[in-house]
């Protein structure tokens, strides 16, 4: 119950923070993917069931706050969770390099899926796809170690905890 409340609070704070943070004009105005980074951190620690529950909840909230159609997060977040759960036993989740790599991949997945969705639905001009993808990769890689190290130090999400 304690972990549930903590993760719910973390999710709300991440949503509010991600909305409040300014975008990076050099990377097509992309914002730091705080929710994506939190998702990777949680998928490394919680049992698969809790990780999937968090994935679904965060994806629905994320897409609901976007003006466009549902899809970018509902498609990207499950891919991130699946990959993290699939390889988490082979990776050292507490290491900065692993976090940097996973954060970059997560950012790239979020950017690629959103680009693909907007390309198909034709709802956004995609004149700078490359900068969006590179931006997603770099910002994700930068953010993940910071968030993960912060959460590790605070010990808010223990490996034994669950979200249900």
């Amino acid at each position, binding site marked *: 119950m304690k972990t549930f409340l903590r993760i719910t609070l973390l999710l*709300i704070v991440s*949503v*509010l923070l*991600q*909305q*409040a943070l*300014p*975008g*990076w*004009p*050099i990377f*097509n*105005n*992309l*914002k730091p993917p705080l929710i994506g980074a939190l998702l990777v951190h949680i998928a490394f620690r919680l049992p698969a069931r809790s990780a*999937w529950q968090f994935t*679904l909840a965060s994806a*629905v*909230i*994320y*897409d*609901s*706050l*976007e*003006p*466009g*159609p*549902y*899809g*970018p997060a*509902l498609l990207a977040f499950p891919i991130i969770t699946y990959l993290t759960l699939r390889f988490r036993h082979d990776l050292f989740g507490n290491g900065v390099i692993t976090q940097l790599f996973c954060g970059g991949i997560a950012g790239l997945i979020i950017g690629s899926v*959103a680009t693909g969705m*907007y390309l198909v639905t034709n*709802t*956004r*001009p995609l004149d700078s796809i490359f900068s969006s993808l590179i931006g997603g990769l770099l910002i994700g890689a930068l953010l993940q170690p910071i968030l993960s190290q912060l959460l590790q130090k605070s010990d808010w999400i223990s490996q034994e905890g669950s979200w249900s």
Partner: protein
Amino acid sequence: MKSKRQRWKLIAGFAGITILLVWPQATYIGKQSIRTGIAPAEEIGSRFSRSFSEWGKALRGLGGAAEREQQLSLELVRAQAELNRLRDIEKENQRLLRALGFQQATPYALTPATVISRNISGWWNTLRIQPNSKKSIHTDSAVLSPDGLVGRVLDVNPLSAEVLLVCDPAFRVAARISGREIFGVVRGMGNSISGQPRVRMEFINKDSVIQIGEEVTTSGSTRSEGFFPPGIHIGYIKQVHRDESGLYQYAEIVPRATGGLLDYLFVVGNAEETP
């Protein structure tokens, strides 16, 4: 048994996602519910950042009541909009109104609103606002700040409303060069690499001579339920170019109004709805 239940849960989850993705009504209900649910948290966050900003101002000796600032902003918006409207219309009114039997333009009401959050991903140039009064807000209504046009209402939720900013590529509004018979369509071009909003006025008559620094205002068009009055300041002409086809001109505009997290905005509504 356990794996069978899990499989059913998985199928139910995928079915839910498919419904959200494909069925527009489910998308609408889903978005409305989440936005309404998150609005109180956003409001608390917005109040916190405002208090923090007020506290910072007070420390610098610039402290002032937020309500007074909002009231002054409202007065300024009204005065500016009225001035623009009068400047353009009054010159021609005496000559044209009598001849055309034109009725006096309906004055519009302004609903103050607080900015509670910005777009979550950065893909869209949007803001979420919370109206400060119970007056109704309509989709496609103009959203103003004391500096001019900020955007239009994209979506209305029970506790908040989405605003599409002028610089968003999906934004389009009929515009004119202030005080002249030169018309065009203003549309957003996103942000520059330095973060400045980029706006362009397109489909300008190729024979019109436009000076750098001329003022661009809305030309007035009622859209569906909302209200988009004429004479609202959009920005100033920065550069004029000939369209590739050679049929039109287009001009780069420097927009003056930009919606920030600490701004008070005003939504235009019909005067009849004023209590």
